[in-house]
């Protein structure tokens, strides 16, 4: 395994990068190799509680050269100090950073099967991190340099035409799906259960003819959606891969199981008690993703927060609309255990109606085309209600990529991989949600 490694070589793929390679050079190399510039090529290994020394021993036994932060005074060790070591262990947080080359030589991969007695809890790809919030001139300059490099190495696109515009025409998908990079994704949410708690679902809608739908009503009316809202949100999160005729693709997780919980009546009203009953059912059903495009302009409710905690404990992630009052986030989205979603216009500017404050992530919410109750079958409407199922659908795709992406892990992954936007976190959270590759 005595391969010669070039120090700080930005023109080679990042497998050859050593731990000391600076982030800017890593980013240039990641973009140059044709990637989307989100992953550094390294692996982040998380050890089970108390198992980091077993993990350290294991790395050494496998012949890796390991740098231990404990060898430095007050553990003030940076990756630059690791030089050309294969791995750097951070014992306080039970994590090891492993170079791409060393990781691959150990057979590491995000889908690696871990044995029950392994000291390793999870292996995840390392992602680039960018500052968000108000960008200063330096960051703007950096961002435009990165974009320039990406354009230079990306597929040829006519000047003046955004890459996304080309995709929308070619791929026949809604602007929202294009912006969330759903079309290029290889995932469809297979094996993941997604609950939509809303006005129900038009169960006989032709676009859902061969889908498995498990449904329950909590409002004393049949599940059949006579409002339209529930069908629209279900469509965005879970709509078909290829709608009939020239209808553009409008749905994300076409392979996921649909759980319809009718918690709002056909006139769009409900109460907290009914919504909680729906949440209880969705969590008992172990739905990995629970989408709630509803709420009220009221303070944090203990019951919602408790439910959110129960969800996360059981490997479920609840995403809820921030609200449309151009005011502070309403309930249930304002609970700390529930992911709050803000709405974006086509220009990726926060929609003028979108609530702000406690916002974790943002998604398309203006003029969103999706399914509607028959006879109309389709409709285009706006709201944080439309943004929320974009996040739910993408969450299902991410959950499919890795069995450890559940609950809080899934929440963090969605934020870590969101596309950064030049707006404060109070408006867009971590940015525009993105589907996995």
């Amino acid at each position, binding site marked *: 395994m005595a391969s010669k490694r070039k120090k700080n070589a930005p023109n080679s793929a990042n497998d050859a990068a050593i731990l000391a390679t600076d982030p800017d050079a890593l980013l240039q190399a990641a973009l140059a190799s044709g990637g989307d510039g989100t992953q550094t090529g390294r692996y982040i290994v998380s050890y089970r509680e108390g198992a980091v020394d077993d993990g350290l021993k294991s790395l050494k036994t496998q012949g890796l050269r390991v740098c231990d932060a404990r060898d430095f005074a007050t553990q003030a060790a940076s990756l630059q100090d690791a030089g050309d070591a294969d791995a750097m262990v951070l014992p306080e947080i039970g994590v090891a950073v492993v170079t791409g080359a060393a990781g691959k030589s150990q057979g590491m991969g995000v889908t690696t099967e871990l044995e029950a007695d392994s000291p390793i809890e999870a292996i995840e790809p390392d992602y680039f991190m960018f500052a968000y919030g108000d960008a200063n001139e330096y960051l703007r300059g950096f961002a435009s340099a990165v974009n320039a490099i990406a354009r230079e190495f990306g597929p040829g696109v006519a000047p003046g035409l955004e890459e996304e515009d080309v995709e929308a025409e070619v791929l026949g998908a809604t602007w929202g799906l294009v912006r969330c990079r759903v079309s290029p994704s290889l995932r469809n949410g297979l094996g993941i259960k997604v609950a939509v708690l809303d006005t129900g679902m038009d169960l006989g809608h032709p676009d859902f003819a061969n889908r498995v739908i498990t449904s329950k009503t909590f409002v004393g009316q049949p599940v059949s959606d006579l409002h339209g809202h529930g069908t629209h949100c279900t469509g965005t999160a879970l709509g078909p891969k290829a709608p009939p005729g020239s209808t553009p693709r409008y749905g994300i997780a076409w392979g996921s199981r649909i759980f319809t919980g009718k918690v*709002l009546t056909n006139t769009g009203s409900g109460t*907290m008690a009914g919504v909680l*009953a729906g949440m209880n*059912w969705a969590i008992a059903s172990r739905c990995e993703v629970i989408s709630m495009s509803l709420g009220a302009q009221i303070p944090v409710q203990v019951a919602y927060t408790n439910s959110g905690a129960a969800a996360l404990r059981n490997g479920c992630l609840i995403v809820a609309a921030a609200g449309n009052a151009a005011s502070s986030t309403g309930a249930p989205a304002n609970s700390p255990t529930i992911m709050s979603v803000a709405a974006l216009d086509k220009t990726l500017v926060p929609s003028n109606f979108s609530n702000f404050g406690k916002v974790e992530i943002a998604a398309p919410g203006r003029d969103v085309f999706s399914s509607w109750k028959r006879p109309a079958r389709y409709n285009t409407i*706006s709201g944080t209600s439309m943004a929320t199922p974009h996040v739910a659908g993408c969450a299902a795709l991410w959950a499919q990529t890795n069995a450890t992406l559940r609950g809080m892990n899934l929440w963090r992954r969605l934020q870590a991989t969101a596309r950064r936007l030049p707006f404060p976190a109070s408006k867009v959270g971590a940015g525009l949600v993105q589907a996995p590759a």
Partner: protein
Amino acid sequence: MTKSTRWILTVAYDRPIEQIVADAAKAGLRDVQVMAEIGCITGTAPTVAVARLRRVRGVVDVAPDSPIDIGPPDADVT
């Protein structure tokens, strides 16, 4: 005639929920719905009963049920 409101009780997990339900019923809670997965109980009771419900062992919070409205199908923004 005392007005009956629907209440949302959030409960702790360290006491069997059936016992909390039984005590809440004794304190005046009716039409009880139990949501064990999320640690919630809902039911109706006159407002004067709330103080008693709050004192039931295992009850963490009592809040009035509140309405949600996403508007009619042709609402501008939803």
